[in-house]
């Protein structure tokens, strides 16, 4: 559980490391099909490969990252960041584990469209739109937990596509879940460092509203992309 993050001082070390990781993930994309074949042709527990896959999925999963970016946009204290991330992790762990184990098949396009909507929701929330329209602030922690549950279904669907063997399924899913948390921590650390610099600048107050409009655009694009996929398949 990402309860505490390295202080910003360690950014000097972390940024090159993250760049290296991103490069590794980019290279890994080419062998994704091989990853799949490897897992499908072997049975039993593969702790480290599944941790790696989970982390890779999170670090390269732009939809999850956009949502997290929206969530921590106005969070300054590490304690708050930790609380929200824990809630998000709790939500997606529940549905990831139960979804795979109960063989719940959810249409991935629907789930991904909901994830796109979660990005739009969080952008509007950051802009103060919900308070303006509803007259009160909906519980942000509850929203993160609920959307975390949906994100978990998305992860479960990705994992089910691997047609995993029943042998060693539980340790493998748990490993994947651990990997997702590690990937989340790495990605969040990078986002937090960048946000830290940005927030210190005088322009942040002026740019915050427009940044969330951009976030909303990204959410709408994700929704349109997934809903079209749902319509044509």
């Amino acid at each position, binding site marked *: 559980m990402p309860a505490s993050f390295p202080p910003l001082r360690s950014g000097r070390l972390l940024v090159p490391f993250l760049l290296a990781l991103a490069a590794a993930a980019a290279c890994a994309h080419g062998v994704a099909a091989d990853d799949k*074949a490897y897992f499908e042709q072997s049975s039993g527990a593969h702790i480290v490969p599944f941790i790696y896959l989970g982390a890779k999925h999170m670090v390269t999963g732009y939809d999850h990252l956009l949502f997290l970016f929206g969530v921590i946009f106005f969070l300054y204290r590490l304690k708050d960041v930790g609380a929200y991330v824990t809630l998000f992790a709790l939500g997606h762990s529940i549905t990831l584990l139960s979804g795979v184990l109960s063989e719940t098949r959810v249409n991935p396009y629907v789930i991904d469209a909901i994830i796109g909507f979660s990005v739009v929701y969080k952008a*509007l929330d950051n802009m103060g739109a919900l308070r*303006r329209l509803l007259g009160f602030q909906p519980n942000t922690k509850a929203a993160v937990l609920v959307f975390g549950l949906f994100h978990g279904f998305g992860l479960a669907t990705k994992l089910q596509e691997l047609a995993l*063997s029943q042998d060693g399924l539980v340790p493998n899913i748990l490993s994947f879940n651990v990997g997702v948390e590690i990937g989340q921590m790495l990605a969040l650390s990078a986002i937090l460092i960048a946000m830290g610099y940005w927030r210190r600048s005088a322009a942040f107050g002026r740019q915050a509203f427009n940044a969330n409009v951009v976030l909303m655009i990204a959410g*709408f694009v994700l929704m349109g992309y997934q809903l079209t996929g749902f319509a044509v398949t």
Partner: protein
Amino acid sequence: MTTYDTTVLPTLPQLGKATAVALAVAGAILVGAVLPAEYGIDPSGIGKALGLTQLNGAARQAAEVAPAPATATGATVTQTEHAFRTDDMSITLQPGEGAEVKAAIRKGEQFTFSWASEGGPVKADMHGEPFNAGPREFSTYWKVARQEAGRGTFTAPFDGIHGWFWRNKGKTPVTIRVLVSGFHDKLFRPEPAA
């Protein structure tokens, strides 16, 4: 740390404008780039003009590897030192179960094959690897997500074990019967990788 003052709420016209702009930009990105590239949906023609529609289909084909159709190229007769043999094997797969059947064969040698699945389609992957290969060292020849039968001629591109991996993705058991005739050394079921 400066704290951003979130107590000043934007006005409804401001919010309406921001949302309208976001929808318009997202729509333009979708129509001009994402939908043509991902689905080949291009009512505006922008995707074609940008060359993005070429991307469509490439990704889908990458998921499946198709063999070449039979053509009359190459030598009419080739000679071999290996003994000719025919092997016949049946395997039953429970739901979710996967298994390999492989033939050891030398580079350049051929076998003809025919397999069929009884009880429903299976995920089929024809591939090969050198003798004593590492876990990631293999070449894929033919890969289909749902297939009931496959037949053809195989020429080994390198010394090694070449054959099939099938997985039953259905809810009921299936039985796969595979028939191999040619100049391979043996047909066997490799131990699944640990």
